[in-house]
């Protein structure tokens, strides 16, 4: 099996897509937030590799073509950001200051907890980009010398957690304005949280998707300073 998959130019891609498809079907059938297609597909592929004794390298030999698309896809995020330009201009101060505060809070709490747990520098920088979109967060983790694979999973689980608690937490904290709700969910739970924000309303969804990119960029700018602190 290992040799078969290593020799194939598409096996890793097909396996990944198949697992993702199963994930979307499960999500549709159950409607549960934690049935996140991405999380399901990651687990399915891992189980498959372990059960059939396929090495990660063999899988990666063809699956890496999927990862290749990540950079142009991240560049494409400029399009939704541009389409929200009017909304962005209208609330520019509130948007920038609250996302800035949220990004600082994210890295500040990771710093505090890492010190508390006595993490190594690599472990610390692995968690620093945990609230931003996987596309940017994994790159940050890699550049800073963290463990990108752990960062990826932590980011995805963060998104799912934010997706589940978003509505209730905002209500409990009396965060009622649709703009504020969208910013809160997008800054803390990136694209997976945004899926929830879009269910709540158009403004919430737009603000949340705007927050994904903005929080990503603000975090990239600040993360190098934070990386030097511990």
């Amino acid at each position: 099996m290992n040799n078969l998959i290593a020799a194939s130019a598409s096996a890793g891609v097909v396996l990944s897509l198949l697992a993702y498809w199963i994930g979307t079907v499960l999500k549709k059938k159950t409607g549960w937030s934690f049935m996140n297609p991405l999380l399901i597909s990651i687990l399915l592929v891992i189980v498959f590799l372990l059960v059939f004794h396929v090495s990660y390298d063999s899988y990666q030999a063809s699956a890496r073509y999927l990862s290749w698309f990540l950079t142009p896809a991240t560049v494409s995020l400029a399009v939704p950001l541009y389409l929200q330009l009017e909304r962005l201009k209208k609330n520019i101060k509130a948007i920038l200051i609250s996302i800035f505060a949220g990004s600082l809070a994210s890295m500040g709490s990771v710093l505090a907890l890492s010190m508390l747990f006595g993490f190594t520098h690599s472990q610390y920088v692995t968690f620093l980009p945990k609230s931003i979109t996987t596309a940017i967060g994994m790159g940050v983790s890699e550049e800073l010398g963290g463990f990108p694979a752990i960062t990826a999973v932590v980011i995805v689980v963060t998104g799912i957690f934010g997706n589940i608690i978003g509505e209730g937490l905002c209500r409990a904290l009396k965060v009622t304005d649709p703009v504020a709700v969208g910013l809160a969910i997008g800054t803390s739970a990136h694209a997976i949280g945004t899926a929830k924000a879009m269910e709540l309303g158009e403004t919430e969804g737009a603000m949340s998707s705007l927050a994904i990119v903005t929080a990503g960029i603000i975090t990239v700018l600040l993360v190098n300073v934070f990386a030097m602190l511990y």
Partner: protein
Amino acid sequence: MKYLKQFGIILLVTGIGEIIRYFVPFPIPGSIYGLILMFTLLCTHVIRVEDIREAAVFLIEIMPVMFIPAAVGLIESWGELQPILVQTVIILVLTTVVVMAVTGKTAMFMIGKEKKNHE
């Protein structure tokens, strides 16, 4: 041909972003330079949004599957994660709540303030 052209434009800007990454000594992924460059080109109408829209939307839509290979790398990094699993869960839960609360509360404050200014 339309999609190929759209994808070509996105790849060109991506490539320029990677070249900038090569020459600028900051640990910032090349995709971020590309993203900012693309946003600037759209705002200055050098590139019209219609020139890349469909390809961009498609790439964003299928983005989740692009994360699978890297995340499956967890198999290789499991040794690093296992000893700090409990701490990871604590960080995950706490920081997500903190970030959501701080962002939401700050936004509420700012919006309230701006509304008062308009009155």
